C-alpha cells in the first residue's frame, strides 16, 4: 500500500487556480521527486499535502486514511512533516529551541532528548551552534537546521521544498547523502520538490514533472529522464548549460 496518495487534486488562491488534477503516490520508504520550473505549482501542491492550503477538489490519503481536510498541525502529528522552501527557521530562537519545536507534536517526550543528541551527532554543525540564534546561521546551516527540525518530529514522510535553493555545489552533494539518510537512518519516506534536476535525479526512484500546475510526465527516474517532455521542457536548457547530466 502507498504511504501517501494524492488523487485528482486542484488547488488555488482566491481566483487564481494553481494545480489541476494532480495525482501522485509515494510508497512506504520511497524517495519521490517533483521537478518543474519556477511557478509550476510545486510549492502549492506540497502545501496542500501538508495542510496549509485546502485542496479545492480531490483527496489526499495518508497511510490509508483520508486526510484531505486536516490542518497542518494535525497532519504533522500523524507524521506528515514539511520543510518549507526558504528554510523558515525561527530566526530569533536558538538552534536548540528550533529543534525542540520540531518535536512539539510528539507524545513521547522522554525520547526527545535522545533525538536531540542524535541530530546534533548527525548534523555536527548544530551541536557547535546549539545556543546561537538560528538567524545568525549561514544559509546552508539554516537548511540543515530546517531538515533536522523536521526530523525531530519523527515524520513518516518528509516533504522537502527546494532544499538545494541557494546552496553551494559542495553542500548540494552533502544534501544528497542527507536525503538518502532520511530514509536509511531516520526511516521516513521523502517527497522532494526541486528545480535542481541533478540532485533530484540522483536520489529519487520515482519522479513527476510538473508544468503550469499539472503533472506532464511521470515514472521511474530513468524513464522520466528519457521522456521527451523532460528532455524538451527541462533538461534541454540545462543540458546546454552544463553539458550532459
Amino acid at each position, binding site marked *: 500500500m502507498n504511504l501517501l496518495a494524492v488523487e485528482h487534486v486542484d488547488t488555488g488562491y482566491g481566483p487564481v487556480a494553481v494545480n489541476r488534477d494532480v495525482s501522485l503516490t509515494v510508497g512506504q520508504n520511497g524517495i519521490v521527486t517533483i521537478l518543474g520550473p519556477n511557478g509550476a505549482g510545486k510549492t502549492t501542491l506540497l502545501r496542500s499535502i501538508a495542510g496549509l492550503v485546502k485542496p479545492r477538489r480531490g483527496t489526499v490519503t495518508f497511510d490509508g486514511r483520508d486526510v484531505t481536510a486536516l490542518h497542518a498541525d494535525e497532519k*504533522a502529528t500523524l507524521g506528515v*512533516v*514539511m520543510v518549507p522552501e526558504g528554510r*523558515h527557521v525561527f530566526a530569533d*530562537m536558538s538552534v536548540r529551541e528550533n529543534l525542540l519545536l520540531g518535536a512539539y507534536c510528539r507524545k513521547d517526550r522522554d525520547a526527545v532528548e535522545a533525538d536531540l543528541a542524535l541530530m546534533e551527532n548527525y548534523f555536527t554543525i548544530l551541536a557547535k551552534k546549539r545556543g546561537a540564534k538560528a538567524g545568525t546561521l549561514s544559509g546552508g546551516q539554516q537548511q540543515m537546521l530546517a531538515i533536522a527540525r523536521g526530523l525531530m518530529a519523527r515524520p513518516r514522510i518528509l516533504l522537502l521544498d527546494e532544499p538545494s535553493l541557494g546552496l553551494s555545489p559542495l553542500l548540494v552533494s552533502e544534501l544528497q547523502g542527507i536525503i538518502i539518510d532520511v530514509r536509511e537512518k531516520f526511516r521516513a519516506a521523502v517527497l522532494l520538490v526541486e528545480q535542481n534536476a541533478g540532485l533530484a535525479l540522483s536520489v529519487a526512484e520515482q519522479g513527476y514533472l510538473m508544468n503550469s500546475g499539472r503533472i506532464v510526465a511521470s515514472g521511474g527516474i530513468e524513464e522520466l529522464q528519457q521522456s521527451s517532455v523532460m528532455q524538451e521542457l527541462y533538461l534541454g536548457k540545462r543540458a546546454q548549460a552544463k553539458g550532459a547530466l
Partner: protein
Amino acid sequence: MDIFVQQLVNSLSVASVTILIGIGITLIFGLAGIVNFAHGEFLMVGGMATWFMVGAGMNFFVALVFAGLLVGALGFAAERCLFRFTLNRPMNGFIMSIGLSVILQHAVIRVFNEFQKSITDPVGLVWTIGGVDVTAMRAIVVAITAVIVAITYFGISRSRYGMALRASVSDRDTAELMGIPVRRYVTGVFIYGSLLAGIGGALMISLFPITPFTGSVIIIRGFAVSLIGGLGNVGGAVVGGLVLGLVDGLSAGYGYPEWTDAYSLVVMILILVLRPQGLLGGTLGPKAS
C-alpha cells in the same frame, strides 16, 4: 521626599492597571494580528462585575477572581463567535471590535445604569513603610500585578507553551507545520488577555470609581502602553506601562493635574516619532497570508 514616594506608589498602582490591559492587547495583536478595541470594555465589565459582587456581600479578592474568570469567558466567547472569522482579515476584526465595544457599553448601561460606580477600599489600611504612609490597597495592586507580570514573562520565555507561542508569533505557517495548534493558541491568548483585563478592572475599581465609558478611555492608554513598548512584545508592555504610569503620577503630583492624560499621550507620540518600533521593539504582527 515622602510625597515623592507616595506619588511613586500611586503611579505604580495606576501603571499596574494599564500594564495588565497592555499585556492582553499586545499578546492578542502579536499572535492574531487583531487590534481588539473592545479590550477596554472587557476591563470595564470586570470592574462592574466586581462592583456588583462586592455590593452583594462578596469578599473583594474572591470577586476579583470571579471577575477575571467571567471576563476570560467573555474573551473566549468573543474569539470563538467573532474574531476567529476575521483572523485572515485583521481590519475586519478591528472594525468588529469597535462594534463590540459599543455593544458592551450599552449592555452594561441596560443591566445597571450609566452612573459611576465605586466600592469602598477593600483593605482600608494605611501602611507606614520606612516612615512613608502608603495606602495598603495600592501596594497590593502593585504586588498582584508584579506576580502576574512575572508569571506571564516566565511562562512565555521558559515554558514549552511559551516557546510554541513565540514560534507561532514569528512564523505562523511554519509553526503549524511543526504540529503547533496555532488556532488553539489564538483562543488561549484571547482567554488569557481577557482574564487579565477582568483582573485589571477589579483592581481599578478598588482604586477609582468607574463608569460604563471607562473602557474607551483606558483602551487608549492600553494601546499607548503596547505601542510605546513595541506592539507584540510583553516586556515592552510592562516598560511602556511603567513609563506612562510614572509620567502620569509625577505630572499629577508636580505638574498641572488636569493635563495628566495629555502628558502621557505626548510622551507616547514623542516615543513613537523618535522610535517607531517602540522602546523594546515589537513584532509587526503576523504576516498577512
